[in-house]
């Protein structure tokens, strides 16, 4: 006779009243329900792709638009002017500026933090810093946008004396960089810590200093993980919306000067969605075409990041 105590699952102590057939039917119903949940995620992906492609085709069927102009055009003015122009490059230029500035800040800082946390920091300090890094990652992006508008821009203008527009790519990029910093630091730290200790010990055995071991052995060994973290952060910066909607402005232009106001792809989408435009005009459908470009870029980056990470995971198993 089995001895039942509190830790024994009830199913083992209780005689099932249902027949085996009923159990089998119940099992398969549950299986189908769970499979339905899982297939729903595929449905999401398919409907995003279907929706964006379908509506983009509708956008290009309108007389004001032209696929060639969209792909190569250097003018984006869907609202003003005699003739509307839909060339994607000014929006991509704005997005590139924000992303490049963000990565110029987040990559070195994040990498240095990750190396410090993984290789140098004592355990107690790491136990404090890692959760606070995750807390930083949990701050809503609208808060970073407010920070860019109210703190970063005045600091750059009055503190450092840089001539800036009120809305500009520079402070938005810096804020996005701060936003991406925890992503890069946290994921890179995971990658660095996953490097087996025997590699470090071998390097120490060969007479390497701590710096040698970190920079010449551990970082190269974790490089694929770091690259994947970087790609995910880039995807996040490209898709970031609230910061650029608040701080980057809404003037789409090809510019080489990040101190000017610009417009990103996401910024254009929020401008169209919050403005008083008709739901069936060409400017409304333009958000789908921009969203398609955005989706393709981030999807490719995300797939690339996942592939690199998967290969990395296999490396030390």
């Amino acid at each position: 006779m089995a001895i039942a105590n509190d830790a024994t699952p009830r199913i083992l102590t209780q005689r099932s009243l249902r027949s085996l057939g009923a159990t089998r039917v119940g099992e398969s119903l549950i299986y189908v329900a769970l499979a339905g949940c899982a297939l729903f995620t595929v449905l999401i992906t398919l409907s995003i792709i279907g929706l964006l492609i379908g509506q983009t085709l509708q956008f290009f069927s309108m007389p004001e638009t032209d696929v060639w102009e969209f792909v190569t055009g250097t003018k984006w003015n869907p609202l003003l002017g005699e003739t509307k122009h839909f060339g994607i490059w000014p929006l991509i230029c704005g997005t590139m500026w924000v992303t490049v500035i963000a990565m110029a800040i987040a990559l070195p800082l994040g990498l240095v933090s990750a190396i410090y946390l993984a290789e140098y920091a004592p355990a107690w300090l790491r136990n404090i810093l890692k959760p606070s890094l995750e807390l930083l990652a949990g701050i809503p992006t609208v808060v970073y946008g407010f920070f860019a508008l109210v703190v970063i821009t005045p600091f750059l203008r009055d503190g450092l004396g840089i001539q800036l527009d009120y809305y500009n790519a520079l402070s938005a990029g810096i804020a996005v960089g701060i936003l991406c910093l925890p992503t890069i630091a946290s994921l890179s730290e995971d990658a660095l810590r996953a490097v087996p200790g025997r590699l470090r010990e071998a390097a120490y055995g060969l007479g390497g200093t701590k710096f040698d071991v970190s920079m010449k052995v551990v970082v190269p060994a974790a490089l694929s993980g770091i690259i994947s973290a970087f790609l995910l952060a880039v995807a996040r910066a490209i898709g970031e919306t609230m910061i650029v909607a608040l701080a980057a402005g809404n003037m789409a232009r090809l510019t080489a000067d990040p101190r000017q106001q610009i417009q990103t792809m996401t910024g254009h989408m929020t401008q169209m969605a919050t403005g008083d435009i008709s739901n069936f005009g060409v400017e409304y459908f333009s958000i789908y075409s921009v969203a398609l470009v955005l989706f393709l870029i981030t999807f490719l980056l995300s797939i690339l990041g996942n592939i690199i990470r998967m290969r990395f995971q296999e490396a030390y198993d």
Partner: protein
Amino acid sequence: MPALSTDFLTNPPGPDPIDAGIGPALQGSVWVCAVCALVCLPLGIGTAIFLQEFQPRNIWLRRLSALLQLNINNLAGVPSIVYGILGLTAFSMMFGLFGSEADPLAETGATYRRQFITEEGSEIVFVPVASRDEVLELTQGMDAIDGNGNPIKLNIIGPDDDFPDDDETLARSILSDAEGGILKDYRWYYFRLPFGKGVFAASLTLMLVILPVIIISTQEALRAVPPSLKRAAEGLGCTPWQVVRHVSLPAAIPGIMTGAILAMSRAIGEAAPILMIGVAVYIARGPAHLMDKFSILPIQIYYWAQQPIDSDASLNFQHIAAGGIIVLLIILFAFNSIAVLIRQLAQKRLT
């Protein structure tokens, strides 16, 4: 500090920053996140259980399962604003298949009434009607409701009739050719297709954003359950679902809850997808039903932060935006603390 008082937490947002508050936005955030959690948790946990606990043995099904996993990882990287566009088109407008928000194809829980101004001049009466388009036949002595909610009998004055003399009769008299304005009343269970710019559409959109996060964290929690427990249950003759129900899930619940709370804290701060759906920022009250107009805290902050700065005023919209941010951060901090607490307690229990 004027920006952080109890009035600030309950007042509606107004044109003047001095007495503007976040009341409706706070209520809206609670509604949207609660409905989002109700929809998202079963779906996300179900998907995670399927991927983690029902791994097929067949090589092709295994590849399919790996593809599902890759798809979920990719969904986690899709910018939230793209989900916003999907939500706008699929949930809010429903591809235009079900009419528009103003003229929905199907709705339940709405009652209509026509409103008339009586010949007395200041009193109003209401006549319930079945639908927006119903042509109301005005008949002598028909039932109506006066402005105070009391039932009365209408007195209809035809083109040839004389006007009554006393005020009491005049207060329930309308002309036979009067055309009242239509009023629509919503019950708490009001529901319609398409969902429109309401709480439900926003919740479903947020669900899309949060779903991959919940799936991934639940999978991690399930993965952390020692396989020996599952093998033991299988050895005792448990079916796969019995293993999940009585062994894996109870052991993984703290991890699942931690992940769910962290996902919800992301949902509370998420603004971009809801911005695409469209919110009513200058709304006087919180939502009353699932299809109701709403505002949420991050978008309230966004609109205030956008306002021009008046350097003469003592209190700008930027200041109350900062107040809203403090409230938002306090909520997030509370959520994160609860999550950390659960994690700590669970660790103690298992070791």
